[in-house]
């Protein structure tokens, strides 16, 4: 193999491996997990079989008799029990007689079992009958079976005769681990909440994008263009601060601005308004601040992209339009904006993706509140899978919600790739070896 090719493969390997393991694999696994019902309850590794009260309840509708049977103890004359009888110091022939005449028999209730015991030749005392029947008391309730065969074997010993279909139903009802299912998507498609969250997301992305990531960014880029360079760079530095500042502190500052004893409350107090938490006061004000918080961060990228695009317009175009008689607004309208068409498209594409996925700021500020009024899709996925108050984290459902974003993300980034013609960026190496 050519040495440069070998070197190339070696040098690109670390990047390829890390990206594959921690970036591409999660993409695929998101799809995989989305097809399961993984949650805190099922755990993430393989589960076991356990006849819990909940499992019995699940069986009740389909197989009421079996459900009733499983939930009651049965009495089985088996070797285990017979061995234990030794400890009770009964009459010598009793155990032998029981083994000889009744080994393997199943009694549906304590009464039946004790009647049988009493009917034996070596009849024990009443106190002993109770002890003996206790020894043969068998139940699968709340017993953990590592695999399905063990559960079925136990059920068979208890005298339950199950058809293969029944076995399937029982094992499904009693399995504690996660299973493959498409329920998550059904939940997403049918849930009223999801519709509302979808609306929230659309509103949030559209409004933030329009007002700030593009609109306000344009305002910043255009106004700084009309300033002396040194003043302009001061303003650009100020408006890049929200992005540079770690998000936790940035949101903390907004919280301080909006809480009951915060800046706005104190300021409005001067005009006689009672203090209130402006961030969480109402859905309207929560949205107002959520969009502001995200918008201030989002505006910076557009500002920088548009600024450099304006800088790329030859200075003589501005001179020419001025001697042609254009005023400032006409210059912006006819000279600057038409030449920003591509940068605007670029920023719109890019920031749509970012806004769809980012929930940092909302999580730290309103947590989706008040109520669930500022809950957006990505935050809802996070809440479902990784942090909620009920404590049952539904990884599967959360992954399914994330999968929706992943699919949207992949589609949008592929479009983005086509629009921005990456193929022109691949140049043939000039050194051939």
């Amino acid at each position, binding site marked *: 193999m050519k040495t440069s090719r070998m*070197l190339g493969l070696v040098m690109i390997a*670390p*990047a390829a491996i890390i990206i594959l393991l921690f970036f591409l694999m999660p993409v695929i696994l998101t799809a995989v997990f989305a097809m399961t019902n993984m949650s805190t309850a099922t755990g993430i590794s393989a589960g076991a079989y356990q006849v819990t009260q909940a499992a019995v309840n699940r069986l009740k509708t389909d197989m009421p008799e079996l459900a009733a049977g499983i939930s009651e103890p049965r009495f089985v004359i088996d070797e285990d029990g017979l061995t234990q009888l030794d400890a009770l110091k009964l009459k010598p022939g009793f155990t032998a007689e029981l083994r000889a005449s009744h080994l393997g028999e199943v009694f549906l209730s304590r009464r039946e079992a004790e009647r049988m015991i009493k009917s034996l030749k070596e009849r024990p005392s009443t106190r002993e009958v109770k002890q003996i029947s206790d020894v043969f008391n068998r139940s699968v309730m709340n017993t953990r079976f590592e695999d399905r065969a063990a559960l079925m074997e136990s059920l068979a010993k208890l005298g339950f005769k199950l058809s293969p279909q029944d076995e399937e139903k029982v094992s499904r009802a009693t399995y504690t681990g996660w299973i493959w299912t498409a329920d998550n998507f059904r939940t997403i498609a049918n849930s009223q909440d999801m519709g509302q969250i979808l609306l929230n997301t659309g509103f949030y992305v559209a409004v933030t994008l329009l007002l700030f990531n593009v609109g306000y960014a344009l305002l910043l880029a255009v106004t700084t263009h009309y300033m002396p360079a040194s003043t302009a760079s001061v303003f650009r530095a100020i408006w890049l601060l929200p992005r540079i500042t770690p998000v936790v502190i940035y949101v903390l500052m907004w919280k301080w601005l909006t809480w009951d004893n915060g800046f706005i409350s104190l300021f409005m107090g001067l005009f006689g308004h009672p203090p209130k938490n402006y961030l969480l006061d109402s859905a309207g004000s929560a949205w107002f601040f959520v969009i502001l918080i995200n918008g201030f961060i989002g505006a910076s990228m557009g500002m920088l992209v548009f600024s450099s695009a304006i800088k790329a317009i030859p200075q003589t175009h501005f001179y020419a339009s001025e001697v042609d008689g254009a005023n400032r607004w006409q210059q912006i309208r006819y000279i600057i904006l038409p030449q920003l068409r591509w940068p605007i498209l670029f920023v719109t594409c890019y920031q749509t993706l970012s806004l769809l996925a980012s929930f940092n700021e909302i999580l730290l500020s309103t947590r989706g509140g008040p109520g669930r009024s500022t809950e957006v899709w990505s935050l809802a996925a996070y809440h479902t899978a990784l942090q909620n108050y009920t404590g049952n984290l539904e990884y599967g459902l959360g992954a399914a919600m*994330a999968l929706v974003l992943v699919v949207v993300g992949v589609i949008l980034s592929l479009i983005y790739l086509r629009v921005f013609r990456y193929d022109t960026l691949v140049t043939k190496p000039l050194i051939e070896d």
Partner: protein
Amino acid sequence: MAEKTAVPTNPASANFSGLPVIGLLTLLSLPLAVMYAYLFIDTISNSQGGSLVPSEFTLEHWRFLWETRPGKPNIWLVTLNTVIFTCCITAVTLTVSSMAGYVLSRLNVPARGFFLAGVMVLHAFPSVTLIIAIFIVLQYLGLYNSLIGVILVKAAIDLPLGIWLMKGFYDTVPWEIEMAGVVDGASRFTVWRRLVLPQIKPAVMALGLFSFLSGWSEFILPQVLAPGARVQVLSVYLAGLIADDNNFDFGTFKAVGVFYVVPVLILYAFFQKHLMNIYGGGTKG
């Protein structure tokens, strides 16, 4: 000729005054200025309830530096974790993307175009949506609640951007330099290491700076993947402080915040131009 050099090449036109736009932006920037000003003021002062004017100087908000709060990890341990976390991410991102970027820019490897397209898609891809799957993967791998796990994840997520940027930087290095090196008998590796890499030193520094800031500021990944007290980083520590304190003590929050943000602001002040280039080139957020 002498006076030509002193004259600005593109002086602004005299037809539009800058004053109205400066006035407008100053007004719009006020909220930000107020927030940042009070971030610092509130850490070293107390004010009477209902007033915005500080009434006394105090260092009580900075107690967290020498007193560990019950139920919270020691601030210096957290700081150490943050430094380790950030430095490792920077190192991994720089090393790996400076190699991969070179390959994509210059070397003839199979599926180069495909890899480049992949990098570009991932660069635009909203990686935070993967956090649920990553959480489960780290649980399987036993890397949950460990620094190494979250470092690898964060580095992987930052890599596409890093590779993309480095590729762009390498593209600007003239081929002649490499051709001369090869003709002089150096191997391609030596050419890269000794001739090309020094050319893009400023770019490497800019990317390193960016990685550092990005790692230092990261919140959601450590919050989800390594929330334990032993491996906590500053962002998670501060978020925890704010989240579980019913009695809001903004003075302390802000003191921790300032402690956390100062390195960022210092770097930003010194390397603003580098950072503008990178942030303008397209990042997440």
